[in-house]
């Protein structure tokens, strides 16, 4: 008996040493890499970080939609990335075609703000509709049924995007001010500042809704136990609809920001960015709101540094680096950065 436990104990210890050793080596490796890059060109270092973070906020807006929905009904909403894609296409049409704004200027900025409200409403409505007509009836079905349905909805949205936007990528003239300014060699684009300025209040608003309002209390209760929430007098269907509306609105905001900062739309955007955003949510601990934002900023940063530093693997390795880090992290922390051992939800 003692022999077995002794052997087991020794194996455990060896494993723990190995894990700790590996993570120390990895950490030092990364720090060394960052260090020499920073030493070589501080301005390029900050430039790369800034670009990375400005992508990161976009991922965060999308990642929250995955994590909100997972938190409340434990569904990975595969269609969420495509909702973001439709929002980008909607924004392009709204600003450039319906309102004929293709140049920067005060009137065009007004249209931008109108479009922000419109696209958030648009995406929230579609997301609520999807839940109402596709997922709700499957709420008590085995987990696989809504999952497959979500894949189906994803194809439907992509098809709509394909018909609306065409089969190839489209470029657009945008209305946000181009250019930027320099601070000690780091070029700061106006669009970066606008991305932060739009995202930060939205994130704060959302966190206020979830933690401070009655509706947020209903969301947290529903996430923990639907039947118990019903016994408290909570309208569970409406609470779930509200959650989809929140996630949709954030995807809408991501759509307009992406379209106006990149000047690009394509029917398969949802797959590319959706995957990265979903990865962010998983990295942060799916179901955890702060985790999704943290994961998104980290992934943005990792990509930015990898693509932009003088000594790095370069852009073609971007995805590989992100997923390698995700796989490593999952091996050591299966619940993600901020996930608790018991699945932490909303």
């Amino acid at each position, binding site marked *: 008996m003692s022999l077995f436990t002794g052997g087991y104990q020794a194996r455990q210890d060896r494993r723990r040493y190995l894990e700790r050793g590996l993570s120390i080596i990895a950490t030092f490796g990364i720090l060394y890499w960052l260090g020499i890059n920073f030493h070589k060109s501080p301005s390029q270092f900050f430039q790369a970080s800034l670009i990375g973070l400005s992508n990161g906020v976009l991922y965060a807006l999308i990642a929250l939609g995955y994590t909100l929905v997972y938190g409340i009904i434990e569904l990975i909403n595969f269609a969420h990335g495509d909702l973001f894609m439709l929002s980008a296409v909607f924004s392009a049409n709204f600003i450039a075609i319906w309102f004929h704004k293709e140049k920067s200027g005060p009137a065009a900025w007004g249209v931008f703000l109108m479009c922000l409200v419109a696209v958030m409403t648009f995406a929230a409505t579609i997301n609520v509709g999807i839940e109402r007509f596709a997922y709700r009836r499957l709420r008590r079905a085995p987990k696989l049924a809504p999952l497959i349905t979500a894949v189906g909805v994803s194809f439907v949205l992509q098809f709509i995007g394909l018909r609306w936007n065409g089969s190839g990528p489209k470029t657009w003239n945008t209305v946000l001010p181009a250019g930027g300014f320099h601070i000690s060699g780091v070029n700061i684009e106006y669009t970066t500042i606008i991305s932060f300025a739009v995202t930060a209040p939205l994130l704060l608003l959302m966190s206020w809704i979830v933690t401070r309002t*009655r509706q947020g*209390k*209903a969301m*947290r*209760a529903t996430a*923990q*136990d639907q*039947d*118990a*929430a*019903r*016994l*408290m*007098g*909570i*309208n*569970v*269907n409406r609470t779930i609809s509200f959650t989809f509306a929140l996630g949709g609105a954030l995807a809408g905001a991501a759509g307009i920001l992406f379209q106006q900062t990149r000047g690009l739309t394509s029917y398969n955007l949802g797959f590319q960015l959706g995957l990265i955003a979903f990865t962010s949510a998983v990295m942060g601990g799916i179901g955890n709101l702060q985790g999704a934002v943290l994961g998104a900023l980290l992934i943005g940063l990792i990509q930015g540094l990898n693509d932009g530093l003088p000594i790095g693997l370069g852009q073609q390795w971007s995805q590989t680096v992100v997923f390698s880090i995700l796989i490593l992290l999952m091996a050591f922390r299966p619940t993600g950065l901020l996930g608790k051992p*018991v699945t*932490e*939800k909303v």
Partner: protein
Amino acid sequence: MSALLEVKDLKVAYGSILAVKDVSLTVNEGEIVTLIGSNGAGKSTTLRTISGLLKPKGGTITFQGQRIDGKEGHEIVAMGLCQSPEGRRIFPRMSVRENLDLGAFLRNDKEAIEADRERVLDLFPRLRERYEQKGGTMSGGEQQMLAVARAMMGAPKLLLLDEPSMGLAPVLVDMIFETIIKIREQGITILLIEQNAAAALDVADRAYVLESGRIKMSGNASDLAKDDAVTKAYLGG
């Protein structure tokens, strides 16, 4: 005395299997009524259906003269019908305070809510000691107290209690039954399910005996406690 709750010919199924085949019962205002029966008899199913968590296959449920079968759970709570469910079902990642807040989710009367909060914390002093502790980290007995306290925070007219003494130490079981009497003294009508049939018949005014989804007997609790068949089947004698 008027009927507060009236269940008639209730049938409830899980998929194609009927769990409740024929249940009719009445709870009058101010009463404690108990529903006893062996495991799997359909007691919890009956309560879940009354609270609107399950939709009946047949029969009617009337509360305060209004049909409530077919209403949503939250509408039924809004009418003043609260339940402390089987297995406690407290919110594990919320504190005692937040759980109690949720019990009062539909209420706006701030002062009355605070008064009720004091009242339930006086009833269960242990909860006051654990006020900021997360529900999921409390002991089974403490969670059970929280479940009952939370249901009382809804200021119910009718309180459904599904095995409130489950998992409690003998002293605490006695305390729960004393509490049930105190709750009634505060003007709340109670429909009680208990494994501990002897204690349930002791506090209750009337009782129903449920067997494989059907009401087999009913009557005054004290009469049923003396009945031979009941004694044999449920009182271990």
